[in-house]
């Protein structure tokens, strides 16, 4: 009997490990396969103040929005960007949409942010938030937020979750599925 449990346990772990490798390979394939190269001039990034952005944080439709606060100078943000890109692609048919809210300095938009988006061929929607009085708007995004980035908001018309942390694909997918399941 112990053997049976052990065997089932092994199977479980193995399948876990396989899934991981598989999704890792898939990730690599996707990032190299997809998308046509963009030029700087093809990249449009609207600059918003918080009042403009707020409308994008409270849409009431059937879509699950994943709003990631990041910047080109934020290392852990850059590291997790492919995760958001892949989610945006993989979950397109399930009404999941990624919005990347850049907190880059507005004067860096042309020479830093736009070339970055073009070079990385980012397909998710990107906006630049230019609103210096962060003390007034950070608590409106989430009262849980210290202001550190990366930070991510998941919301649809019924659920709202905020995370001040980095994500792997599996971790973010788990959060998405927990909301989609409801």
């Amino acid at each position, binding site marked *: 009997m112990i053997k049976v449990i052990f065997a089932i346990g092994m199977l479980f772990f193995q399948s876990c490990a396989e899934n991981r490798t598989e999704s890792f390979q898939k990730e690599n394939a996707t990032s190299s396969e997809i998308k046509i190269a963009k030029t700087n001039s093809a990249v449009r990034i609207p600059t918003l103040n918080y009042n403009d952005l707020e409308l994008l944080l409270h849409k009431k439709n059937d879509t699950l929005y994943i709003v990631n606060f990041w910047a080109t100078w934020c*290392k*852990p943000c850059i590291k997790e960007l492919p995760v958001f890109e892949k989610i945006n692609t993989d979950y397109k048919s399930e009404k999941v949409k990624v919005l990347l809210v850049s907190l880059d300095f507005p004067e860096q938009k042309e020479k830093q942010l736009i070339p970055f988006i073009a070079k990385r061929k980012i397909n998710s929607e990107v906006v630049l938030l230019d609103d*210096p009085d962060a003390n007034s708007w950070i608590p409106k995004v989430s009262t849980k937020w210290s202001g550190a*980035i990366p930070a991510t908001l998941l919301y649809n018309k019924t659920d709202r979750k905020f995370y001040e942390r980095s994500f792997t694909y599996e971790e973010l997918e788990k959060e998405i599925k927990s909301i989609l399941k409801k």
Partner: protein
Amino acid sequence: MKRKEILTAFVLAVFSIVVLSSFILSVDAPVIKGYHIGSEVADINLLNVDNKMVSFSDFKDAKGFIVIFTCNTCPFAVASEDRINALDAEFKTKGYPVIAINPNDPSVQPDDTFVLMQQKAKEKDFTFPYLYDESHKVYAEFGAAKTPHVYLVQKENGKKIVKYIGAIDDNVRNASSVKERFLANAIYELLAGKEITLKETKAIGCSVKV
């Protein structure tokens, strides 16, 4: 009997998978710990850029401290450097010296080594201690989540008490556009023996790299 055994094994297996996976998948962000307004602050003993150890207890005449978690690289920290010097100039003589602490791990953020901290302090003529939180214990005790992250500490009846947490002012990016000096206002209220109006503020910063 045999069927029962298989069933038991199955139930046990499912149970163990559920229990195990709850451990494997518990990746939720930890609750932010650390000091709050009114918390008593423990003393520190950290290496300064001048190669000497610094503790709060070294500052016998201080009324309190402006503790700022900052680093060499974060653009918001860099944008605050001149302001931190200015704060030290304005408030050291009033009894509230600046104590800057770099919480980042250079193995994660290579530009935050002790040697580069020394260079930064020299280049920017830091008038305050710039300490290296090598064990990453102090930032965790405070609960600092980002750089820059300010804690205003006041000595009260032999204890060091947190009076204000947050941002230096309402515009991290641009000192010339500042409308409200949150931290300075808080210190002036303390100096006047008043209750601090705005005890906590938020600002964008770089997550602490450990």
